[in-house]
C-alpha cells in the first residue's frame, strides 16, 4: 500500500501529540505569568510587572512557534483550553519561585519530546526543538539569578529588590 501518510505529514504522530500537549503547557505558562504580572502591577512593583508581562508574551510566542510548526509539517495543531490559573500569591519571592518551578517543568517536558524524537527517528522535530532547549536554559538562569538576588538582599524592602529586576531581557 502506498505510504500516503508520509506524503501528508512530515512528523511522527506521537511527537505531534506531545507537541500539542506542549502548546497547552506554554499557553498555561503565558496565562500564569500574566496573573503574576497583574499581582505585581497592583502592588506597584513596576519592574517585576514588566518582567512578567514580557514573560507572558514570550511563552505565547513559544506556543505559536510550536503551533505553526505542527501545521506547517502537515499535522493538526489544536487551540489550547486553559483554566485554573491562580491569581493568589503570598509574596514576590513566592512568585519567582513558582515561575522557576514552572520553567523547570517546561524544560523537562521539552526534554521528553526530544527523547521521543530520537526514539522514533524524527530528526526534523528534534532539530526544531533544539531552539527550545537553549531558550529554556536561558529562562531558568534568568529566574535563578533573580532568586539569588533575593537571598543576597536579605531583609531589604521589596521596592529595592524590584528596582534590580532585569526588564530588558
Amino acid at each position, binding site marked *: *500500500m*502506498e*505510504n*500516503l*501518510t*508520509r*506524503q*501528508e*505529514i512530515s512528523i511522527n*504522530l506521537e511527537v505531534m*501529540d506531545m507537541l500539542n500537549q506542549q502548546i497547552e503547557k506554554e499557553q498555561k505558562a503565558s496565562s500564569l505569568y500574566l496573573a503574576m504580572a497583574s499581582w505585581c502591577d497592583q502592588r506597584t512593583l513596576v519592574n517585576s510587572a514588566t518582567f512578567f508581562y514580557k514573560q507572558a508574551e514570550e511563552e505565547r510566542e513559544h506556543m505559536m512557534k510550536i503551533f505553526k510548526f505542527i501545521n506547517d509539517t*502537515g*499535522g*493538526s495543531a*489544536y487551540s489550547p483550553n486553559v483554566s485554573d490559573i491562580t491569581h493568589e500569591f503570598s509574596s514576590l519571592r513566592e512568585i519567582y519561585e513558582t515561575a522557576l518551578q514552572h520553567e523547570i517543568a517546561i524544560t523537562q517536558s521539552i526534554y521528553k519530546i526530544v527523547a521521543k524524537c530520537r526514539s522514533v527517528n524524527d530528526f526534523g522535530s528534534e532539530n526544531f526543538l533544539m531552539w527550545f532547549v537553549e531558550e529554556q536554559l536561558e529562562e531558568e538562569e534568568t529566574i535563578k539569578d533573580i532568586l539569588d538576588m533575593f537571598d543576597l538582599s536579605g531583609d531589604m524592602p521589596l521596592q529595592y529588590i524590584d528596582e534590580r529586576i532585569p526588564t530588558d531581557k
Partner: protein
Amino acid sequence: MPLIMELVFSSKYYTSYQSSVERCFYIDFGHKSVKVSFCQLLSLRYKAKQMSSYEYLDQLLNHNDTVLLSLCDKQHMILLDTLMVLDFIDLMKGTFAMLELNAVLTS
C-alpha cells in the same frame, strides 16, 4: 465507493480504507461510507482521543448514552451509542497503527 481501495483496518462495526488513486481515505460506518482527507482523518483521531478519557466515557454511559459525531467539516453527522463510541476509538487506534506499520514496511 471507488473500486480501487485498500483495507486499512476493521473494527467490530466500522472499516477504514485507503484510496491511493484518489489520495484519500474512506470510512465505512455500515449505513454510509464517508470520504475523508488525511487532515480530516487526523481530526477524527483527535476526537477519538478526546472520547477515550475515563471522565468522558463515564459521563456518556451514565447520562445520555448517545453522542452526535460530526465528520469532514460538518458534512456528515453520525449518531453513536457508547458501544459504537468504543468501537470508533478502536477503529482510529487500529487505523493509525496500520498506517504506521505500512510506513515502516514501505520505507
